[in-house]
């Protein structure tokens, strides 16, 4: 999942981790920049939808422009 927008990654990353934990999703953040965050998540489609819904709104000090999802070819560790 790739999240594009404008954010202080510092405030957003813990938020993402908390939301994923609430959904019982195991995620790994691979890229964390001020305008791009990439994470690997595995789980049922409805739960990944829920992750996308939550993140697209996010905390008040971030603006998420778009979220793209692509299947991961090889499991990253």
């Amino acid at each position, binding site marked *: 999942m790739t999240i594009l927008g404008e954010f202080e990654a510092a405030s957003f990353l813990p938020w993402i981790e908390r*939301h994923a934990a609430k959904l019982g999703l195991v995620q790994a953040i691979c890229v964390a920049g001020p305008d791009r965050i990439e994470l690997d998540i595995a789980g049922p489609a409805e739960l990944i939808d*829920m992750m996308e*819904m939550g993140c697209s*709104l996010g*905390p*008040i000090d971030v603006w*998420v422009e778009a979220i793209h999802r692509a299947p991961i070819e090889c499991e990253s560790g």
Partner: protein
Amino acid sequence: MTRNTMIDGWYPVSLASQLDAHGRRTALMGEPIAVRRGEDGNAKVTGGNGRDLPTCIRYGHVWSSLGDPQKPLFAIPEADQPGRRLVDVGVVRVRCSPLRAVENFLDIAHFPFVHTDILGAEPHTEVQNYKVEIREDEDEVWATQVKFYQPQAAKSAEGGITTEYMYRVPAPTCSILYKTCPPRPGEWDVITLFVQPLAEDLCDVWPWMALFDDETPMTDLIHFQQTIFVQDRSILENQIPGLLPLDPGMEIPTRADLTSVAYRRWLKRHGYTYGAQLVAQ
């Protein structure tokens, strides 16, 4: 303090049909206002300090603003279509954020539980995927291809059918619902929710309809909608927190909540935060 960006919007303040010389005292965003018919027959709205406020009459209601509206009131082209019956439903006072009232109107997943055997019924609870977009030209939120099974979708509907909907949010406290219309395939019934923000946690809801239905008595149409809104009120007055959260950190939105999420994103983008909670707690 940042400026309330919703101050320049148009808000419903009265039914046009109930306008009289005596007038109605009400409020807009915490400011007491008075609405009456002036000597020239036009609506006159005055603010707390006696100043004249901008006014227009449209869609059965008197509209006003505490600020300086940059745009005319949004268009509802169907309202002028011949053959439609225009229904003033009246007012329902709800002790909730005006934004929560709109969000609830955009929600279909609650039909089987809150409007049981009218707008929904178990086991037909699944929400199929639908489309949501921000139409940039009009700057409006639209949800389309929303489909839901309904035991009795409208006064004119006999028995259960899968109804299709479109939702439109042209202003932070207004929403328009387009719904398939059993007697006229190809046309949409129009049901609107115009919300008057009295305070951040109190609103008057003015539903209004433009329907293709010549049969059902007017009182039945009004009664049907009022029943629905009274059911919604029992929800709206019992959600925690009272303000609409713009941070879903204490919530778990799902794909069925896509319209709600898009609406909140749109509010956040524009800084439309009167009635919103900014930080989850």
